[in-house]
Each structure stands twice: as structure tokens, then as C-alpha cells.
């Protein structure tokens, strides 16, 4: 019997990933949704170069062959807007995830590694970031800074949202410490930087990845919410802008004409959330082998 070969085959990362992914159909669907929206964000604006066409004679038109999802307040195609709007939403989420990952991981690692004064002062800062109510803060900040562009919005979201990741990373670092991980590495005479970057980071990366995916959902929610609330000036189409226009200017809650304008971005956000949640399940199993062997 070739149990050994089989075992080796099972442990190849690609195979494992595929196996974990294929175990539940939901995970594949989740990945498909994420890939779909990512492609939309990358290719969407190329599909429709230039400005959105307006048509004052065709305002809030119902879905038709020409406009699959109908038109908006200016007679622009809703489908086109949804597709073009995906880039801002996802780009912002990606930037904020990047900032959060960088800040959260660095602060969590340093705090968990050094302990003592460094740890407690960094954790106080983390507490502060976690305590300040995030969304109201964003609302106030949006009035001070103009973060209508993805880079700025992403930075602000990232800078205000790294607390959770930092905490998770720190506790993970501490638990690695508990396991004698650090003492062993120190015993080998490795430098601090080496230990943090080469030894700790790879062990923590999975947790960062999971927390990031979770926070990406939050970031998408927050940025779209800011646009929806109309506190952030918008210069381009964005799902939040669409929701804002649909509800506050189009009367979508009261008038069936503007319905597709309301539902299109709403469904997009729901789908994207669903996709990430479904996919997260797979990631969870990949990084928690215990779960893998259970089922």
C-alpha cells in the first residue's frame, strides 16, 4: 500500500487547497464571486471608457434591452454604473486592507514580542483606536478631510481600523512565545529582526489573512455607508452614491421606478459579502488543520 505517497500527495499545498475548496460547493461559489467582482473592478472601467452617457429624456427608465437594469436620475445606464463603481469600492477596500495589515501586524508583532513598556503603551494606543466609535469618527473626519479618492479613503479607513488586527496578532505572538518558540530562536542566536520577520511573521500570516478578509467586509461597508450618508463628496460613480441618490433623491423607497437603481448596488454589496464569507470558511479550514481533519 502506498500510504506514504498518498500522505505526501495530501500535504502538497495546492492539492490541499483544492481539496478544501472543493469540499463544500459554497466555497467555490464564494471564490467565484470574489473573482467576478475583482475582474469587474479591474476591467469594468475599461469596458466603458469615458464619461457616463446622460439622457435627460430617459430618466429612471425601467429595465429594458438597451438598459438591462434601467437608468438613473440622469438617464445613465445603471448596469454600467454598477460595473464602473466596483473599482472604487474594491480599490479602496484593498488599500485599507493593506494599510491595516501593515499597521496591525507591525504593532501587534512588536507589542507581543517586546512586552513590557513597549507592549503596554502600544496596547493603550490600540485600545484607544478600538474604543473610538469608528463610524461616527469617519463621519466627523469626512468633514475635515476630503477623502473622496480611493487612496485617501483607503488610508483613512486603514488608519482608523487596524486595532482588531493588531490585537489578534499580538495574542498570536504571545501564544507563540508561550510555546517556547522565541526562546528556541533566541537560543540559536538569531537577531530580533530575524526572529520577527523570518520566524514569527510566517506563523502569524494566516491569522492576519483571516482578520484582513473580515476587515475588508467592514471596510466595504464603511466606505459605502459614508457615501450613502452623503458626508463624503463623491466625484465618481460608487455603489454608495447610487444608494444615496436612489433613496434620498430618487425616492426609491416610495417609487417603483427607481427600484432597480436601489437594488442593483444593494445586491452587489450583499453578493460580495456573501462571497467573502463563503470563501473565509475555506481559509479558516486551511489555516486550522484541526478543523480539516475533523470533518
Amino acid at each position: 500500500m502506498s500510504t506514504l505517497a498518498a500522505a505526501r500527495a495530501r500535504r502538497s499545498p495546492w492539492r490541499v487547497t483544492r481539496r478544501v475548496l472543493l469540499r463544500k460547493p459554497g466555497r467555490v461559489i464564494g471564490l467565484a464571486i470574489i473573482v467576478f467582482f475583482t475582474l469587474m473592478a479591474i476591467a469594468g472601467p475599461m469596458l466603458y471608457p469615458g464619461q457616463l452617457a446622460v439622457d435627460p429624456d430617459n430618466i429612471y427608465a425601467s429595465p429594458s434591452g438597451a438598459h438591462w437594469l434601467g437608468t438613473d436620475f440622469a438617464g445613465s445606464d445603471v448596469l454600467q454604473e454598477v460595473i464602473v463603481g466596483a473599482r472604487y469600492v474594491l480599490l479602496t477596500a484593498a488599500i485599507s486592507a493593506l494599510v491595516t495589515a501593515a499597521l496591525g501586524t507591525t504593532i501587534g508583532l512588536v507589542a507581543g514580542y517586546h512586552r513590557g513598556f513597549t507592549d503596554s503603551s502600544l496596547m493603550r494606543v490600540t485600545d484607544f483606536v478600538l474604543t473610538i466609535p469608528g463610524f461616527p469618527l469617519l463621519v466627523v473626519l469626512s468633514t475635515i478631510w476630503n477623502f473622496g479618492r480611493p487612496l485617501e479613503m483607503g488610508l483613512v479607513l486603514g488608519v482608523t481600523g487596524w486595532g482588531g488586527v493588531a490585537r489578534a496578532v499580538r495574542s498570536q505572538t504571545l501564544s507563540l512565545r508561550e510555546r517556547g518558540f522565541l526562546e528556541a530562536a533566541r537560543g540559536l542566536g538569531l537577531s530580533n529582526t530575524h526572529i520577527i520577520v523570518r520566524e514569527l511573521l510566517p506563523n502569524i500570516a494566516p491569522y492576519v489573512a483571516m482578520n484582513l478578509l473580515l476587515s475588508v467586509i467592514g471596510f466595504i461597508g464603511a466606505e459605502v455607508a459614508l457615501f450613502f450618508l452623503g458626508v463624503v463628496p463623491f466625484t465618481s460613480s460608487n455603489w454608495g452614491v447610487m444608494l444615496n441618490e436612489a433613496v434620498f433623491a430618487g425616492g426609491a423607497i416610495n417609487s417603483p421606478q427607481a427600484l432597480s437603481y436601489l437594488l442593483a448596488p444593494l445586491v452587489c454589496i450583499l453578493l460580495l459579502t456573501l462571497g467573502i464569507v463563503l470563501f473565509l470558511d475555506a481559509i479558516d479550514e486551511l489555516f486550522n488543520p484541526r478543523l480539516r481533519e475533523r470533518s
Partner: protein
Amino acid sequence: MNRHTWVTAPVAALAVTAMLAACSTDNKAADGGAVYTTISGTNPITAGAPMNPFNASGNYFLGYNTMQLGFDKLNPADPNDFFPGLAKSWTATPTSLTVQLQDKAKWSDGSDVTPDDVKTSLAIALTQGSATVGAGFLTQGLDVGAVKTVDAHTVEIDQAVGGKNINFTRLVLKQTIVPTKVYGSLVPADIWDTIAASQGSDATAAQAAIDKLNATGKTISAFAPQTDVSAGPFVLTRVNPGSAVLDRNKYFYDLPKISPKQVVLRHYSGNEQIWGYMKNGELDSAPYTSIPTNVLDEILKAGNKRVDSLHYVNAAIAFNESVAPYDKTAVRQALAYVIDRKAVTKVGEPVGGTASTHLTGMIEQATANWLTPDQVNALNPYEPDTAKAETLLKGVGFTKNGDQWMLPDGKPWTITLQTVNGFSDWIAASTVIANELTSFGIPTKPALTADFATYKTEMAAGKYAVGFWLTALGPQASAAYQRLYGADNGFSMRGATVAHVSGKGSGNWQNTPETYTVGGNTVKVGELTAQLSALAPADQKPIIQQLAIATNQELPVIPIWDYTSVQFTNDKRFTNFPQQGQDALLNNPPGVWMMQGYVQGKQ
């Protein structure tokens, strides 16, 4: 409340809920009229705010429980044309106003409305920011010098010494009249001495007096009366989180005219809520909201009737002329030719807007009123005409490189069109304008500022070259032209002369030239505008004509649409609403309609 009640309260609540839910009674008033439900457009209703007309967020409702001596008809030809309120009639001299109070005017506690109440109210008015040193004293402000009781129903209000404000009547009539018994204790006994000092020639003493008045004013505006004492047709019974409930004031001087037994004013935080209420037929009348066509259809379908009236304001595109190339008249004219105002209006303000046609700095109706037909015909209507625009641009050195226009210095011309968050009509319009300009060869990007406060601050700082602005404020032409050739353009009045400033920190962001040349004549816009406010309407005409023609030629702003006040009435429960055309009435809240004998319940 004793302890026992506390303990049993939740139990009782459950029992009562169950009982009353089983046999729920119709709460609608049965005797002597129905409930009139509408929206107060002026203040959101906040349960925590005081019932005080001097509070910036106060729960007070003009025409219902808040009374003035009269109610403005917004007559552009006569600024002093008012509906009677607490004043039955009035006679004006150049320096004073004598008011005959309504014979039966009473407060809701049954006591008479007296000249003393008027005196207290005007004193309070002077503590509410009206008294300010050097801000156009003797020409603009409420320069009340003394209030004299002539008899129990007659009161004489004198202008301060030397005052000759032609708007004095109007300013006095517009003041809110409150009862002395409620507010009197807040007003220092020597207030009229202080007022006199504030109007005196000793600048230091005047400033001290004004500080004292302001301090009193702050106390008054923060004051929260326990109950509402109203001289209007209704009295505020209570304020709920979502509504204010006013009951008919049985001591109202003209009670037979008031049909509704109760008025419910609903709170709203956004237009979409008002639309929802109307769609459900919940409102008897609704004030103006910026409305899209699809929603209008729904509202009309629900049995509401549309009533339009004039709105003395328009939406325009303003320029900062210190930024090239907007200093060139030809450029502004060219832009006016490119922008299809009708198409823009269709998207931006399809229901409550009519595309501007004559671009005089006043709304269309005012232009027609002040200018002769010949003059109107001679105005340039700037019909969409890209060929004319091209000619104009080429005439001042612009070139076209492929599809794109180049500035005279050879750089590509792009425009950032600034609008402000929350103004959905401007935003929608800006997308269309950007589209039109871009197609013409000037790449244009709409940009938004986070909120209006920031917008105003940044605009005043000259940060925006091209942006949306409200102009043609009215009904007086002087107000409309103050908007163009007033403080925002660096003009201010110093006594009888007009000063002009520009540059950083001056507040001048329009930066138009001080004079225009029209048909070979020099038009001093700042000075002419300043003169308007001191002239009687009849004398204003030639000046307005000059300003209108100059504005049409120079286009310091490009008006896009005139707002129309689109109100709705619903005759399910009430009839005899004011009709289209009764603008004077429609510009006032429904409480005033009722006082004038309109709105009767259906029985």
C-alpha cells in the same frame, strides 16, 4: 411619584396595552373640525428644543402658534405689502409706523394682546442680533428707537433718530410678537436706554450697549417656557419625537375662520420622508421639496394636487474672475452658449425648476416685471449654440487642438465644476453640464465639497473657479443684486459711499470688475446696487433695468434654472385651498391661509 407606582408601572402598562389594543378607539377629533396634518419646512421638530421662537432650533411654527403683526406677501413691487396678522391695519410715515391691533386679539390664556407686548417683542428683536454697529445702520436694520402706546389697541413705533429706512414697515411687521408675561422678566427694565445707547454716536458706549443687548439676547434664546402662550390660531400642546401637535386656540381673534380642530406638524429629516407621507395620503398639504418626476407621478396618483408658486431664487454657475480664463466676458458667454439649460434642468430640477431664459440676475418673473418688453426682447437669451461659442472663444485667442480646446497660452482647458454634498439637484445637474462641456471639448469634472459650511468657507476663500451658487434672491431686486454686486464681490456700504475691496481675506470671491461698459456707458454695479436698498420701488426701476442689461451682457453668473415652489394640497379632508396664482398666500404657511379664510374641513 411614589414607590408603589414605580413597581406596578410595567404590569399596568401590559394590561393597558392589551385592553386598549383590543378596543382601539378612533383618536380623530370628532367635534368641531378635523386634524390638519402637514410639515413645517423651517425647523425639524426636536422634542428636546424649547418652545421659543428666538431659539435657532426652537419648536415654534409661524402662522400657527407664532404670530407677527403681519405676513409678507413677497410683493416685489411693494416690500411693505403684508397680510394683516396681529395688526388689523397700519399707517406708515417716513419715520414711524402706527399699528392698529386686532380688536379681539388675545393670548391663549385669555388675556389681551397689548401694545406693551409689542414693545417687549421689539426690544427682544433688538437683542437678537439686529443691533450691530456699523452694519448699515439707518439703511438696513431694524432701527426701532421707541415704542409708544397710543391706546389699548394702538401702538406707534418710531425709527431711531435720523432713520429713514424705507423697509421699516416691513421689518417691524415681520417681527414675532411674544407675551410680556412670559418673556418680560428676561428683558432688563432699562433695555430701551441700552437700545438708545447702542444707536448713539459714541462708538465705545454703543459697543458696550450692544454687548449688553447680545448678552440679554442669549439668555432669551436659550429660554424654555413651560407652556406655549400663543396669540395665533393654534397653541402648541406638545412636541413628540416625530411631530408637534397644536390645538385650536379658542381665544383666537378670528376663530370662526379656523376650521381644523388640531394641527399636526410632522417631523422630517429628508425629502423622501415627505414623499412617503404624501404617497400614503397622510398630509393635507406639503411644502416645497426638490422632487424627481417619478416621485411626482406617485404623489399625484395618490390624490394630491400640485400648486405652483414663485420662488425667488435660482441656481446658477458662479465664477471666480480672478482665475483665468473666467475673467474674460467672452469665455463666460461661450459657456452660456454651450450649456443647454433646458436639458440640465430636466435632470437637475425636473419638477421644481424652469430653465432660465434671460439671464438677468433676477428670476424670470422679476425680469418681466421690471423691464419693458422691448428691453426683454433685446436681452441675449443665449440659446444653445456651439458655433457662437466657438467664434467667441477663437475671438479671445483660444484654439482647438483636435477635440480639445486650448487656452490662449496653449495649455489645455479643463474645468472643475464645484458643487456641494446634499444638494442633489446641483449634483445631478453638474453631471449633465460636465457631459455637455466635455463633448464640446472642455474636459469637465464635477467635484463635491463635503458640506455646505465647508463649501461656503472655501468659496469665500476663492478656492473654486467655477461652482454652483444660489442667486436671484428676492423678492426685492436689491437682494438679488446684492448677491451679485454685494459683499461676495467686495462691495460694502460705508454710510453713503460704497467701498470696494479685493484680495485675500476680503470676502470678495467673485472678483468682477467694479464697472461694466454697456452700450458705451459705464455702469457702476456696486454703487447702483447699494442705492437700490434705499429707494422706493418706483424709483428703483431705471437702476434695475441698467443692472439687468449689464448682467445679461457680462454674465458674472450663468443662471441655470429658476426654482418653482411646488406645493401639494390634498382635498380628502379639507377644501378651499389657495389656488395656483395666489402666490402671496402660497408663500406663507397654511396657518396664514386659514387666518385669511381658506381651508375648510369636509363634513
